């Protein structure tokens, strides 16, 4: 049913109404842009966003939060909601970088430097995708690291760098790029072992399944992927 509606969605008569999108915190900027473009292309449709850590969003969805679309920063959190997700599709990939203060005053060149005594590092908590990825990347590098804090999402970890409270944080390349006025980015090779794949899905029981399918199709379209790659995401 949803599928047939979805197929007729492209180019068919415009469905009016609101599309509620639950999206990972790391998608905040690019999805906000995508939402505006989508609204311009589908007159009468409004996109509402709820941005947070993917795990929190998955919990909200399983507890019955009224969402039409879920875009997660990891397939694990998409799996959490089980068959509430209708045919999840990978749409972008993201990689970790080290974010440092502007000018990289501590001269950090790789993850091994993060264990220097006196250096303060923020990581995401292991429960959220950026934390899980950080764990994998650090293991791949053989680096044992004691952070000063485990933040609840990637934006919170980045804020601690912007404020100067920590010397470095492992964050997504896209988030570091958004904050390029305040932070510098150090790429590290081990992050290739911990690439996050982002799935997106229409949700079963969506109040606006047609609008939801149209939004997902828009994200997957060439226009959508262009916005996402411009923000630093990699195409799947």
């Amino acid at each position: 049913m949803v599928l047939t509606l979805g197929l007729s969605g492209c180019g068919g008569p415009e469905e009016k109404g609101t599309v509620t999108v639950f999206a990972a915190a790391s998608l905040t900027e690019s999805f906000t842009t995508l939402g505006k473009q989508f609204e311009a292309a589908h007159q009468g449709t409004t996109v509402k966003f709820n941005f947070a850590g993917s795990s929190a969003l998955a919990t909200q969805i399983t507890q019955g939060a009224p969402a039409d679309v879920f875009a997660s920063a990891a397939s694990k959190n998409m799996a959490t909601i089980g068959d509430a997700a209708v045919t999840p599709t990978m749409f972008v990939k993201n990689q970790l970088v080290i974010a440092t203060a502007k000018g990289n005053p501590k001269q950090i060149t790789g993850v091994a430097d993060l264990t220097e005594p006196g250096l303060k590092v923020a990581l995401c908590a292991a429960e959220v995708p950026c934390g899980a990825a950080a764990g994998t990347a650090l293991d791949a590098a053989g680096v044992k690291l004691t952070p000063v804090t485990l933040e609840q999402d990637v934006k919170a970890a980045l804020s601690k760098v912007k404020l100067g409270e920590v010397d470095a944080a492992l964050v997504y390349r896209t988030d570091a790029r958004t904050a390029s006025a305040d932070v510098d980015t150090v790429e590290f090779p081990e992050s290739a072992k911990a690439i996050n794949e982002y799935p997106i899905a229409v949700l079963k029981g969506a109040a606006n399944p047609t609008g939801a399918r149209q939004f997902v199709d828009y994200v997957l379209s060439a226009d959508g992927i262009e916005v996402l790659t411009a923000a630093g995401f990699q195409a799947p």
Partner: protein
Amino acid sequence: MTRQRVPPALLVPAIGGLLFLVLPLAGLLWRTPWSTLLSRLREPEVAQALRLSLLTASLATLLCLVLGVPLAWLLARVTFPGRRLVRALITVPLVLPPVVGGIALLLALGRRGLLGGWLDETFGVSLPFTTAGVVVAEAFVALPFLVIAVEGALRGADTRYEEAAATLGASRWITFTHVTLPLVAPGIAAGGVLCWARALGEFGATITFAGNYPGITQTMPLAVYQTMESGDLDGAVVLSLILLAVSVTILAALRDRWLAAP
């Protein structure tokens, strides 16, 4: 006391109000996985977070008593220009979203903060990500509760005893310690209990200012949030229940002891 018929116009909304407060707690109890409760309680992370919560809330209360009682006395007993403004400023943390409080604390006491930058450069002291930072965050949001309670007690106290002590030659300090303090002790205790309870429940300012690290800055409310974030609703419910049980037990015990309810 004469027994009166309660007008339904008052009784109905009163019961509604009670239900409104109690129903969410009932939801928590209803959803509690009782069978795994004990094993969850024994998890070292839970014990660690609970211990840290009790320690920091108690230290924050102590800090509030040391700073707050003199502040309340100043507001209640001394007339000075700008007293109304000072009183308004003291109540700001009551209405400020705790996250805003956390950001404000970072900008004041963080490594690059107004005072924190100097502390870091001169003494190498940095509060964020330390247990002391948790105490500071908790004290910031809890202090108004203490000041307001103690100021109220001071205003309600009979000043004739203080005047008598002064007439008999007691200095202001002696009057304060020997007359005023014993007179408002129940008020101070009540304020302290409120202050402790608020500190125990503190979340927003703590996670923003002090960060989240098990054993150092992860108090119970932060542990609840992290467990919830990880999709472990059962775990979050159990932790919430423990926090609720501790707060209710201590509030009830201290209320009977200190707040003479008629």
